[in-house]
């Protein structure tokens, strides 16, 4: 019983902490660019503001447009409930299959792209077209990361994989170095950060993800934005779980949970800082250079897999 309570508490923590991570990244970016930063909890105020507004919906849209934000947010929350944040061996972790996780993201993106086309505007079509293209190119790289990881840990379940990594101690795996970098590159592409997409842009013709949600307002926009923040945190937690899981709670005790919380918070803060630094140093690429970027991620994944086959297996 207590495991279920912990699982629900972890999910709630995940969902409520996601805007904080987004705020932290924005804060770091502003400081690096020598601008005055907003408060770290500004995203919470934005969400509260949006939830309090009336909703205006385009008259060309159908029920799909109004349903989509709920589907996207629901998929994000479902994914957040299965990924181990503070503790492993929770009852929800049995569904924590990495391929199923990728499937959830794909479902959310599918419905989101359809909602973009629903309004019958050119911006929606453009956003949907670009987003689906970038997502298709990121899939092979993501799969190679999952593949290389799974043949090493002999499982696709996140919880079991964390146990395996913790049990083998500090091992320098060449394949893991490659796929860690590949995962970071794919995460940047999938969450729509610089250099693939600029989340703070106002120029419609440069948008990928933002163009899809241009028509949304009020609570719909709040749900979509929140889902985006949860997705960013999800990729960060995925990276931490796969490559640096030390500190996560394997038993259910207050001390272990506390250690896990502090560990994951510190690692996420560090990852957020790294993302902010890379966003400041690198410029956004034009759309037709993204295939080269994702091809490089694919190459890294391929090298990781080849290193595993050649170097790591007896």
């Amino acid at each position, binding site marked *: 019983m207590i495991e279920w309570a912990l699982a629900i508490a972890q999910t709630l923590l995940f969902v409520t902490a996601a805007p904080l991570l987004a705020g932290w990244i924005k804060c770091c970016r502003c400081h690096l660019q020598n601008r005055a930063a907003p408060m770290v909890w500004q995203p919470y105020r934005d969400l509260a503001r949006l*939830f309090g*507004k*009336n*909703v*205006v919906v*385009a*008259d*060309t849209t*159908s029920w*799909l447009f*109004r349903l989509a934000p*709920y589907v996207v947010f*629901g998929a994000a*929350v*479902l994914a957040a*409930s299965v990924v181990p944040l503070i503790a492993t061996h929770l009852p929800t972790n*049995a*569904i924590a*299959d990495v*391929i*199923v996780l990728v*499937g959830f993201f*794909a*479902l959310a*993106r*599918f419905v989101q792209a*359809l909602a973009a*086309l*629903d*309004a*019958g*505007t*050119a*911006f929606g*079509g*453009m956003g*949907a*077209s670009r987003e*689906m*293209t970038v*997502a*298709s190119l*990121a*899939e092979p*790289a993501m799969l*190679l990361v999952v*593949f*290389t990881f799974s*043949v090493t840990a*002999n499982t*696709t379940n996140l919880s079991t994989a964390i146990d395996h990594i913790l049990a083998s101690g500090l091992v320098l795996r060449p394949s893991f170095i490659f796929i860690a970098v590949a995962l970071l590159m794919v995460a940047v592409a999938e969450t729509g950060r610089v250099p693939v997409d600029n989340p703070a842009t106002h120029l*419609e013709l440069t948008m990928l993800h933002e163009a899809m949600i241009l028509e949304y307002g*009020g609570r719909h926009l709040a749900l979509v934005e929140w889902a985006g923040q949860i997705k960013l945190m999800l990729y960060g937690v995925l990276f931490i779980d796969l490559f640096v899981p030390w500190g996560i709670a394997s038993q259910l005790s207050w001390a272990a949970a506390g250690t896990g919380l502090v560990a994951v918070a510190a690692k996420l803060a560090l990852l957020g800082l790294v993302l902010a630094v890379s966003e400041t140093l690198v410029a956004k690429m034009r*759309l037709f250079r993204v*295939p080269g970027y994702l091809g490089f991620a694919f190459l890294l994944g*391929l090298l990781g*897999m080849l290193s595993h*086959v*050649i170097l790591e*297996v007896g």
Partner: protein
Amino acid sequence: MTLALLAPLLAMASALAGALAPRDAPAGRLLVFALLGLSGLASIAAGVLALAGDGSLYARLPLGLPWLEWHLRLDGLSGFFLALIGAVLVPVSLFGPGYTRAFAHGPSHPAVLHLFTGLFVAGMQLVVLADDAFVFMVAWEIMSLASYFLVAFEHQHAANRRAAFLYLLMAQVGALAILLGFGVLSGLSGAFSFDAMRASYQGTGWANVAFALALAGFGMKAGLMPMHAWLPEAHPAAPSHISALMSGVMLKIAVYGFVRFAFDLLSQPHWGWGVATLIIGSVSALLGVLYALMQHDLKRLLAYHSVENIGIIFIGLGLSLLFGASGAPSLAALGLVAALYHTLNHALFKTLLFFGAGAILHSTHERDMEHMGGLIHRMPTTALCFLIGCISISALPPFNGFVSEWLTFQAFLQVSFLESGALRAMLPFAAAMLALTGALAAACFVKVFGVVFLGLPRSRHVRHAREVDAGMRAGQILLAASCLVFGVLPTFVIDAIAPVTRALLGGELANATASGWLWLTPVSPQVASYSAPLVLAGIALAGLAISITRHHQRRIHPVRRSPPWDCGFGALGARMQYTATAFAMPIRRIFQPVWHVREATVRNAAQAAGDNERAVTVRHTLHIDDRAWDLFYEPFARGIQWTARQAARLQTGRIRTYLAHSFITLLVLLWVVT
């Protein structure tokens, strides 16, 4: 067994009823499809009973040649495919009457349509029941010829006639290859029956030849690259419920034939067969989806997606052969289960998608996506069912497409059991190509659903479309529901398929349902687990929570409707939306070498329309062709013509030369005899 024999008999009765029914009698149409539906129910019943039981049922009919009577057999594999045929036939029998009403007053007599539909179905059912090569080929030819007449049903259009001819040609070439394959096996065993072939000793050389012939022949019928050219021509030409039957069932009969030949009749698989099947499957899948992305004819697009999904099925079969040859029967069972499950899923959602296309064609007389739009408002039920079909084919949870792709990926992940390092290095590349295929398919179906159903209508007929009648809606709803059911209850399906893998491979997924009916754990619970019912429950829970909050919110902050955002430029029209071609443009630019693209923009500066104005007309044309024609079919055709020209040298027209031919032949024969 009598139930299984009843199914083709009912189909033939349906054909007879169709042939005799007058043109515009609705009762005749209903009778035809009712008999077809009963045939479907009989198939499902027989198939399920065969899967539940453990042995095989035999029958021998005194038809055929005097010394070679018909052997028929119903075992697990036949039962599975028989149930699959039935599962598609029942919705077709619901969809058919409404759809074929339009043909009652057309240029071709509908009796032809109903007659050959019944024969087509009967042929397919007999192929599945066949236990010797003779019955198999007879039933196969019945199936091919009946479907030729169905494809050529609307023969007033030259394009349909060409498509039908191409289809017939390729069907016959494929049948020839299959016949030669059976010939090799019967030569080795000395008899035509499958029992004799199974028991015969097959040396490696002849087994390779037989396998290659089977792959070529069954692959041509299934639509593997590069032998797929007939698919995108024939499917749009046929009436939509026939396209659904062809794509949903006939391609699966080809898969059945391949499975029967390679897994059952050939005794010892070789790892090279697995690699060849895997490579051909991967190439078909990736190129199929890339070609589909560029189509704007709805039925052609769906036909190319059939090529893609058949590729995915053959990837699973290739993995199964590979693992079987490496001595891992339970992993081979995993590959085979993934392939068979995907076969069932594809039959269901492809039929659903073709029904949607048929409903749209029936309502709007449009096949081109660029003229559609906004149909979700005019045809809500069709739109919802089509959406479920789109989500299923894009392999998204919790529907059925996701389960079979997940199983295929799990089969790939067991690659560390192979000893060959080179294979272990190359197989993940194929898995990455499969992932790319799945993602591109999702992009394609966003395009399809978005351009066809969402947005603003782009032509007059579409603006005034009406929802189709109850029968057509019922067929679609039934299929959509079954997509959900087969996605949420995978453990039952896998338990049902277990006797098939046991019989063919000697292994099964022992741990597949080890943790109960909720969890699907193909290898073991620690390696991978998926619980579709829990995912659905999670989605339902989230949906419930959301609808409660939404209900509360809607009272406080109501929804207001207004025109969409137009940057202040004024009224948006239907032509300002993204077209299907525009949606696929980034992918076209990225993967350019794959297609044969001819793009031209011609600007004509017309006369000055006023003092400072000049009217300019810009004409942009874009043709995208299948490269297989240039690379494979044209050289092949040229080679055949060259050979024919060389052979024509024999025809000199002079009497003395012909006498000389006979003379030399006589000499050679005399020499050979001594």
